[in-house]
């Protein structure tokens, strides 16, 4: 049984006189103990709302409706009353936010903010709490912790602030850590350090980590399992390597293809996904990605695409998925069935450009070239 089982989670914001917004529209995924799960997607796809809904942190307002289930260790988080929810927050599930500066109280020293958690959940006070706080800061790699405890957030560097926030989050050794774009506000070298720290914490303490990000580099470096979100639904779920090697959903293909690469030629242009997130089709009317999809077929519109379960636990929501390199779609499926050990078998398949035998599709003008899958293999392995 998974540690966190999110089942058909939906969040809608209804405002009088305005269109009802379905921010999250039936998201399902699970997080096992000790696992790092990525939630990937571009802005506005419902990543953050999903995490806030799980934590029960969505601002209470009339018109907000949260549906579905989020079962954590046998209890449905969405059904909890405020008190027990507060007890779980920080102790069993903790969260790391995007902007470390604004997530720390500017007028209170770091030490007070760290000990606050210790007092709340572990009943520690006075010198014992201070000592534990110093140890926590040391554990997340803040040098000179005793001194830092007395400092204010504005005296710390961005990386150190994020470390302090991580220290607060892991203070009670939670079983699940939710990181909402923890590296977005940091510069690249610090990003790498913070990711390394998160990796270390997960490895040492067996904490499960739910990583919300739009950065595929973060995913490649950290996640075991990846859920790709689009317009409030999971469109593809896969282990990290298969996802990077042979993405099936055209959206995933587009995401991977639009990452700028150091090894691409100088004059080469980026391959963005055409259109923007606003060009969505409501899910009940078909595939939300269809208006921007290069592999669109007639079946995409009309009814929502069903989740297709592939052999090794990966799944995608597409009627015309990207073919596995070097084989037609049907052949690829056969290949899967023949060699259920996925990874190695597929890695042996020679990579090639898009095969000729692609089913008829309504290709818009100037479709982006398929991503260079061959070179990506080295990156992900």
């Amino acid at each position, binding site marked *: 049984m998974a540690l966190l089982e999110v089942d058909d989670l939906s969040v809608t914001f209804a405002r009088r006189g305005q269109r009802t917004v379905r921010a999250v529209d039936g998201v399902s995924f699970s997080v096992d103990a000790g696992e790092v799960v990525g939630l990937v997607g571009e802005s506005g796809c419902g990543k953050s709302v999903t995490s806030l809904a799980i*934590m029960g*942190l969505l601002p*209470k307002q009339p018109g907000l409706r949260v549906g579905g289930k989020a079962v954590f260790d046998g209890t449905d988080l969405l059904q909890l009353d405020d008190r027990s929810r*507060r*007890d*779980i*927050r*920080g*102790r069993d599930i*903790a*969260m790391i*936010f995007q*902007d470390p500066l*604004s*997530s*720390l*109280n*500017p*007028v*209170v*020293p770091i030490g*007070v*903010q760290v000990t*606050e*958690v210790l007092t*709340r*959940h572990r009943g520690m006070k006075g010198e014992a709490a201070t000592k534990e706080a*110093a140890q926590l800061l*040391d*554990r*997340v*790699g803040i040098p*000179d*912790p*005793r*001194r830092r405890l*007395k*400092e*204010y957030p*504005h*005296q710390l560097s961005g990386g150190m602030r994020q470390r302090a*926030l991580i220290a*607060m*989050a892991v203070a009670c050794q939670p079983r699940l850590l939710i990181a909402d774009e923890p590296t977005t506000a940091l510069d690249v070298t610090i990003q790498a350090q913070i990711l*390394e*720290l998160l990796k*270390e914490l997960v490895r040492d303490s067996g904490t499960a980590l739910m990583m919300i990000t739009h950065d595929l580099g973060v995913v490649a470096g950290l996640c075991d399992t990846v859920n790709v979100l689009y317009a409030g639904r999971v469109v593809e779920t896969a282990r990290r390597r298969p996802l990077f090697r042979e993405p099936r959903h055209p959206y995933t293909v587009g995401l991977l293809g639009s990452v700028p690469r150091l090894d691409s030629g100088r004059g080469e242009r980026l391959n963005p996904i055409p259109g923007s997130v606003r060009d969505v089709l409501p899910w009940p009317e078909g595939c939300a990605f269809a208006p921007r999809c290069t592999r669109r077929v007639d079946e995409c519109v009309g009814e929502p695409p069903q989740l297709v379960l592939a052999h090794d636990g990966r799944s995608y929501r597409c009627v015309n998925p990207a073919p596995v390199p070097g084989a037609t779609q049907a052949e690829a499926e056969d290949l899967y069935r023949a060699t259920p050990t996925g990874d190695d078998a597929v890695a042996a398949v020679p990579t090639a450009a898009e095969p000729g035998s692609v089913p008829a599709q309504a290709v818009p003008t100037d479709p982006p070239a398929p991503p260079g899958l061959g070179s990506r293999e080295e990156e992900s392995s």
Partner: protein
Amino acid sequence: MTITTGKKREKLDRLSELAARQDEQGVSVWQEAFRRLRRNPAAIVGAVIFALFVVVALVGPFLVPYSPTDTIGIREGLIRPGVIPGIDGDHWLGYDHQGRDEFSRLIVGARQTLLVGVVATLIGLAIGALIGGVAGTAAGLGGRWGRWIDSTLMRFIDMLLAMPSLLLAVSIAALLGPSLITVMIAVGVVSVPVFARLLRGSMISQSNSDYVLAATALGVKKSKIALTHVVPNSLAPVIVQATLTLATAIIEAAALSFLGLGNQNSAIPEWGVMLAEAQPYLGVRPGLAIYPAVAIIITALGFTLLGEAMREALDPKLRK
């Protein structure tokens, strides 16, 4: 990344503790603001006026050359109808209409003026912050009761705010009967809505901030968040407003005294009363009105300069 274990770590810990003690231990937002305040010339001018005023108010009455109630001019026959002697060597600002030393009265009057300003501001600050704090907390906690408490308190504040402040003050003074305490209460009540709205608005905007969300995500109780996170962050504009209110309180108190609603005991001089008393003699000795007026203006200017400088120093947007 975690470097050390055992003995070495203990040693490092002790060293860092030592360093922390010798070092400046964390510069808070307030200390930082004070630093910036010191670099602002307007703040220096304001602070000097403020300090001077306070010193004069505190020790002035012990140093004045003449008693403020001694009618020297009448005793010596200097005051006749239509004649009020002006400045001479012994009486730096001349005599008032009852032959009392004007300079002494002005100095002694500073104490009354400061008392009225401070007490009135404190009344306004206390009541206003209480109402605003309760409303802000209630709004932050949400729920039906929270919203109800918040909007009830705020409608009451709106009612106070809808009345012209001087009219409100005059009505209160009329109800309570003219006295110095009346002036304090009236001026204080007039400034209540400003403080209440300011603190409530500030608290609501702070409770939407990320660190409140982060604290909530760590399971901290809402009431504790309100007290330890929201209130300290919301106080800066209120403190600035208190300094500015001190200036307006002095002016308003003078206005009420001028209207005859203030101190009735002319033995204790007060700038507003002095201004009112000088009115019939404007043609004879305009100085009698000018001196207290200038004193009021300089004091109010000092407070305003200081308040504005504090606002700038505490504004996070202007922080480098």
